[in-house]
């Protein structure tokens, strides 16, 4: 479903992603793990047509994101790290808007919207504005929306950030369920190792722009001779803390955290 070969992306002299290759098979739940600044988001941006690679090739469902931008876009759904719902609109309106933007015919839009809102336990609240939703509900709505146009691949970039254990648990149950029923391939990033351990069929660990290990949770533990995925992760990536320079988006995130009503 996703095939990446010798992919690199440099920003000036800095190599954010350095010659990585991996494949994700259809129907897999693939976790992409790495410390801050390891190159996770840069890779996702390249896969999702938002950033052209410096070199290397990407095939998304057999297509190059650079050359077939719109075709690739209609084949994936994405949940960003930062919220991207319209808070003043209702859940149903957010779904509907997405459907129009993805050219989903009206009737199918209605039906699928209903199915997904019910699956994510949001149907009762479909007519409420999103600003009245809890963090977990918003995340669920974003995932439901990302699936509305029946994508082949679903990208989840740290979808459980800031959620309580209950919401996290519930969210992954939903994702696993949809993965089974719809056969959608899931590509996720997270900082919670227990989540990756629980849901992912395969895991890639990326550090300093290079993939340092790839395999199932069992394989990674065996490779590093550790008991838990967290220990394996730390052994693979070291214990040094990555102090990234805060960019404009980080500054805005801080301001947003101050103003956000939760």
């Amino acid at each position, binding site marked *: 479903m996703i095939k990446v070969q010798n992919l690199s992306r440099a920003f000036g002299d800095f190599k954010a992603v350095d010659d990585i290759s991996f494949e994700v098979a259809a129907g897999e739940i693939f976790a992409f793990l790495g410390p801050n600044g390891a190159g996770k988001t840069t890779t996702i941006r390249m896969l999702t047509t938002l950033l052209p690679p410096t070199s290397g090739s990407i095939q998304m469902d057999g297509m190059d994101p650079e050359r077939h931008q719109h075709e690739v876009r209609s084949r994936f759904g994405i949940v960003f790290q930062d919220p991207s719902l319209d808070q003043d609109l209702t859940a149903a309106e957010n779904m509907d808007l997405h459907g*129009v933007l993805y050219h989903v015919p009206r009737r199918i839009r209605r039906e699928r919207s209903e199915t997904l809102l019910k699956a994510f336990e949001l149907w009762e609240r479909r007519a409420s504005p999103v600003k009245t939703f809890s963090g977990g509900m918003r995340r669920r709505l974003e995932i439901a929306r990302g699936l509305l146009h029946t994508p082949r691949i679903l990208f989840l970039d740290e979808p459980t950030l800031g959620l309580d254990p209950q919401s996290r648990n519930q969210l992954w149950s939903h994702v696993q369920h949809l993965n089974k029923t719809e056969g959608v391939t899931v590509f996720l990033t997270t900082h919670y190792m227990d989540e990756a351990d629980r849901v992912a069929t395969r895991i890639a660990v990326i550090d300093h722009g290079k993939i340092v290990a790839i395999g199932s949770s069992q394989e990674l533990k065996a490779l590093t001779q550790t008991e838990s995925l967290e220990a394996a992760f730390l052994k693979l990536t070291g214990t040094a803390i990555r102090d990234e320079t805060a960019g404009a988006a980080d500054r805005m995130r801080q301001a947003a955290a101050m103003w956000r009503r939760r």
Partner: protein
Amino acid sequence: MSAVYILWLRELKRYTRSRTQIIASLAQPLLYLLVLGFGLGPVFRLSGNGNYLQFMAPGVIAMTVLFASMFSGIGLLWDRQFGFLKETLVAPVPRIQIMFGRTCGSATTALLQGMLVAIVCVVAGFRPLSLVQIPAAIGFLALTAIVFAAAGTAIGSSLKDMQGFQMVMNFLVLPLFFLSGALYPLDNLPKALVVLTHIDPMTYGVDGMRAVLINRTHFGATMDALVLVGAGAVLTVVGAWRFSKIEI
């Protein structure tokens, strides 16, 4: 084209749902109208210029449109990091359609806000010379809205963080307003001010409004309309270009 329509509709829905915001945004024009209108009225009359409220009301209405459309455009900065805009930028829709839908939405809501303030002006005592000219006035208001919604889109697409927002407010939006002749006549100004007022597109919006509403004009309504259409076209192209460069 359904993308353009649905994004335009989205802006409209958001506007009509934010009742408190609508009321709050009436405060500033009201302040100008009442404090300056009644405060400077006697001086204005003594200088032989007639009724100040009549003179400044078109300016205050145009100001509302300027502020509303610029803000909505600059709000794009927030919207693209923490809002719905981000979602639209990965949709299989050409960017130009997204930019167009959003900018038209901004312009429409700004126009509605301007018309609301126009009603407030009439309540405060403003009287247009003839009702026949109202559609022409709305036309000028719409042109002004498009010019500054496009400018706002260009700026909002280029800004990197919220600090830039304050800069734009203090060094662009307020000067655009104060240099537009909304509050004072353009006759007998110092040379520097003549140059600045003439390059401010807002000047032509205000002058056009005055031309049709109180039959008092510096450039003539045709000239005003031509300049606004020209500025609108240029800024829309610039806005579309800046918008196409947004990275997320």
